[in-house]
């Protein structure tokens, strides 16, 4: 696969989440706390995976970082600036892709640069570069509905990368894909992260995926179903290098440890 290129005008951002809380109004009147006292620091360029049982607030955390939802307590800063709303600096990759079905692959990728009112040749160059980076040059003029799920997710990734984000937010992006596609996309994402150096917050249900991709895994627990607001249970550093071997003993030891942390919660409650 070709190289993404070296021009990177935007620096990766660090993330500071301090005593973040989110409450939702409930039918009975008393607000329900989805998440409370979440603290998280991500240095610029780090790849962080968040795992945890359903309802632990990991998606809420991502949505607040994206600017789609507002916290009810605490603060969120990306690159030293408080998050007030969605911004092309924080690219989001959704599980269901969220591509514009009426735009071709090329137009989907060019959408962000065009919105940024970049000059035509720049838009063209960026689009071509990221089409190439995700291996979809041959499919540039297809529409999303004509592509497989894996290819659609590649378009979605290229689409946010074309905006040169300083933070990449990924909400179970490979959750709907088959195992083979999933592992090839994990490899590609790993490579893209090494090349761009962008900070990544990646949410997943798969512990193996987290250990494969992350510099650090954040285990979240709790949630309305457990009677405790969602919170960070533990953070585990993954001291493995690039090109990780999922069959190695170290890899599986980390997997077991995280798995125990995730499941401990579910049975304890």
């Amino acid at each position, binding site marked *: 696969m070709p190289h993404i290129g070296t021009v990177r005008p935007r620096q990766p951002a660090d993330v500071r989440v301090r005593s973040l809380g989110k409450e939702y109004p409930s039918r009975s009147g008393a607000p329900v706390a989805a998440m409370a006292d979440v603290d998280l620091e991500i240095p610029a360029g780090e790849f962080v995976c968040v795992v945890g049982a359903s309802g632990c607030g990991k998606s809420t955390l991502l949505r607040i970082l994206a600017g789609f939802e507002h916290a009810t307590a605490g603060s969120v800063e990306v690159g030293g600036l408080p998050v007030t709303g969605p911004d092309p600096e924080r690219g*989001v990759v959704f599980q269901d892709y*969220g591509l514009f079905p009426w735009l071709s692959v090329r137009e989907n990728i060019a959408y962000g640069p065009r919105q940024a009112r970049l000059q035509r040749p720049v838009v063209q160059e960026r689009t071509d570069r990221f089409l190439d980076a995700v291996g979809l040059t041959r499919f540039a003029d297809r529409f999303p509905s004509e592509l497989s799920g894996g290819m659609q997710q590649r378009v979605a990734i290229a*689409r946010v990368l074309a905006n040169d984000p300083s933070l990449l937010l990924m909400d179970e992006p490979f959750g709907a894909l088959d195992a083979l596609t999933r592992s090839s996309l994990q490899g590609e994402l790993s490579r893209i992260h090494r090349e761009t150096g962008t900070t990544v917050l990646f949410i997943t249900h798969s512990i193996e995926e987290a250990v494969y991709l992350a510099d650090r895994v954040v285990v979240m627990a709790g949630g309305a179903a457990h009677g405790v607001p969602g919170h960070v249970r533990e953070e585990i550093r993954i001291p493995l290098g690039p090109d990780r071997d999922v069959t190695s003993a170290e890899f599986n030891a980390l997997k077991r440890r995280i798995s125990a942390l995730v499941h401990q919660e579910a049975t304890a409650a």
Partner: protein
Amino acid sequence: MSSTQARPTLVRRRPRGATFLLALPVPALILVFWTIGVQQAWDLPFGIQMGFLPTPWEVGRRLVDLAAGGIVDDAFSGTLPAHLWASTQRVLAGFGLAVALAVPLGVVMGRYSLAFRMLDPTVNLARPIPVTAWAPLTLLIIGYGDGSAIFLVFLAAFFPVLLNTIAGVRQVPPRLIEAAAMLGTRPAQVLYKVVLPASMRSIASGLRVALGLAWVILVVGETVGISTGLGAMITQARDQSKTDLIVAGMIVIGLCGFVADRLLSGALTLVTRRRPTLT
């Protein structure tokens, strides 16, 4: 790449010739039945007395005369272009006005719940009133003439466009709005960049329903106080008991609705450049 390289699935086309041949027998039978029925003066259920009908041949003769003149040589000979043009103008004016108002209103109502809650009850109260029931009042408050006919066409076209636009806009997945926002779409542009294209299919079907209704209501709108127009022509033909002219007028109006629908579909395809939309 591990993923399958999906190609668009094409619907297998049946040979056109066979489709054409299959469509022929039914109209042919109707023509035979019609001709014999008129000649024998059959009495059918509902009290239909076929003896009063013109034969297909008489209708065809009248159609040619209407269009070109020189056969029947009465007041209607060669007047078709004038009637057709007058009616088309009224349909275009009423339909165009309805689209110009209903699409923006529908987008706003579909997108903003405040607007929806304020306007939806009123819309639902006004909508069930048949346009034909508006006709007498319209004639009194607007007066005989173009204005009334155009207003009735406008009313007929307005609600289908409005309701389909609202429905289409409400179906736009929130995900697409989020995607647009995080890609840097300015809030003012979201309607144009995402909401409108995402609800295009629903809006288009509203437009087609509305245009069909516009031709239906046109005939009502042209019945009184108008001298040129297909509805007016039929009304005059009734007053003079010219059944062949009535049937000829019916056929022309039907064809107009058909051609208008094809033209609208073609125009919509051009605008959307055959792009897929939400299903």
